[in-house]
């Protein structure tokens, strides 16, 4: 599975060649090479600490490789190049990142200000901002929260605001870090429905997750990370069908328990219920 690249004939949104990245002395990515085709929905799978979030930050040009080569839309990405106003503007216009912790992303006094923040930074006109904010508030059922402080919303509402405030700039590429983490089943369902709707829409979506129950719905292709290395890649069906791989990468673990009949059983166990379904 390792050798196959995702849709080699399609133009690449991102291309990484032998990328290394470390937080001071602690390595986070160790020689990762991968290609993310434009218009595809991709899942980055891996257990906690496997390097998924770091990889997303690299793709969002929030940090840059210590070694190796990173390119977006056919252009090299580096700290120096991102200092150029025009390049930074074009990149931020095209790529949006939804952080795992919405509290990190919501820093304005009201939901309205939060949604207007991105377009303001990109220099949109007042009329355009007002129109788009209103449209997003309606689309994400946030109209009644318009003047509320984002910090006082529920977890699901915060996630919706975080998603809306990134999508308002209509990015070509959407990067999401654990979008269903800490959400109740209903909120999970809303997020999954949205991501499932992105498939085939032409938008590139990269979702970092260890929630295997949502992968088949939201992703065409998967990359599996373990300890900062890319250990496998393939279609969602291939990856989800490879129990040995999922166990080896700690995405699945053997679960032992005693049934009412007194017999002990072991079986593979996923930590999450299907999004949107009752517990």
């Amino acid at each position, binding site marked *: 599975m390792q050798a196959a690249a995702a849709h080699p004939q399609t133009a690449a949104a991102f291309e990484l060649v032998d990328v290394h990245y470390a937080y001071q002395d602690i390595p986070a990515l160790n020689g990762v090479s991968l290609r993310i085709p434009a218009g595809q929905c991709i899942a980055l799978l891996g257990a906690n600490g496997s390097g998924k979030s770091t990889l997303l*930050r690299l793709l969002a040009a*929030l940090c840059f490789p210590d070694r190796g080569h990173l390119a977006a839309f056919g252009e090299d990405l580096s700290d120096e190049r991102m200092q150029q106003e025009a390049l930074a503007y074009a990149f*931020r216009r095209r790529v*949006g990142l939804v952080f795992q912790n919405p509290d990190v992303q919501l*820093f304005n006094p009201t939901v309205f200000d939060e949604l207007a*923040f991105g377009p*303001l930074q990109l220099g949109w006109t007042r009329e355009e901002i007002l129109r788009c904010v209103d449209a997003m508030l309606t689309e994400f059922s946030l109209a009644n929260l318009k003047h509320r402080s984002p910090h006082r919303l529920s977890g699901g509402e915060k996630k919706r605001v975080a998603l809306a405030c*990134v999508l308002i700039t209509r990015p070509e590429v959407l990067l999401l870090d654990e979008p269903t983490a800490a959400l109740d089943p209903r909120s999970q369902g809303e997020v999954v429905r949205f991501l499932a709707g992105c498939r085939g829409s032409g938008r590139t979506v990269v979702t970092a997750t260890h929630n295997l129950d949502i992968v088949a719905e939201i992703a065409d292709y998967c990359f599996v990370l373990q300890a900062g290395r890319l250990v496998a890649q393939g279609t969602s069906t291939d990856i989800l069908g490879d129990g040995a791989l999922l166990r080896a990468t700690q995405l699945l673990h053997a679960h032992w328990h005693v049934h009412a009949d007194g017999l002990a059983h072991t079986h593979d166990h996923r930590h999450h219920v299907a999004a949107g379904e009752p517990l």
Partner: protein
Amino acid sequence: MGEQSFLRGGHPRGRGDFLERLLRGLLDAMDHAADAERLAAGPGLLQRLDPRIKTFGLLALVVTAVFVKSLVALALLFACATALALASRITLRRLAGQVWIGVLVFTGALAVPAIVLVPGDAVAVVPLLDWTITRQGLRGAAFLIGRAQTAATFALLVILTTPWPQVLKALRSLGVPLILVAILGMTHRYIFVLLESSVQLFEAKRSRVMGPLPGPQRRRLAMASVVVLLERSLQLATDVHLAMIARGYRGEVHLLDELRTRPRDWLALAGLLSIAAVAIGWSWLPAIGDRG
């Protein structure tokens, strides 16, 4: 964080234990900030002015208060600050709580010794201690306290009647360098990050502490928390900054409504500068000024 905080909404009064009082203090600080934002967005004389004009005019009065050489002129400036506050729906209670008492305590600690240490004409003698209070000492103390109170009141008026992004925009318009404005903006944001981290940390600690703690243990707990808190808030603040960059932030301040100056703003500026001119003029009129 807000709704999850069981102390939110009401903040029970009374002594309570150490952690409870600490939490209450942090939550009060956040409520204060939220109140200030509401006040800045509400109606009032200063709230209606262009932030650039207001900032420039009030900063001119701060500078005047620092350099004025007449107690009468200083009193006039202080009265103007109070009147402007009342016209902007800022209560005397808020002014006293947020500025006057704090400034009095800090500058008082510096000014009181000057009353007896500065040599000059004796006015009275402190019983038992036999220390001489001098006219020059009293005058020096009055100037120190008066200047600090007046300048701090004007500065607070800018903050309480202007939403923070507009203060930053006004500073940029007045030529303050981008890097300084960006630092001010981030500092303001990080104060809230720090407060929120503190509340979460102390709520978590409180949930694991059974009953009141003895003094030394309380102090140990507080000291250990400071280090953890600093690390956590630094991490969170970095993440917030990255989230801002990811959405196109480059350090510049952008507002939805561009600032616009109207005739009433120019009128207000003329009024504020006239007050400053009168205060300065008063100091230089030997007949009525009380220069010393």
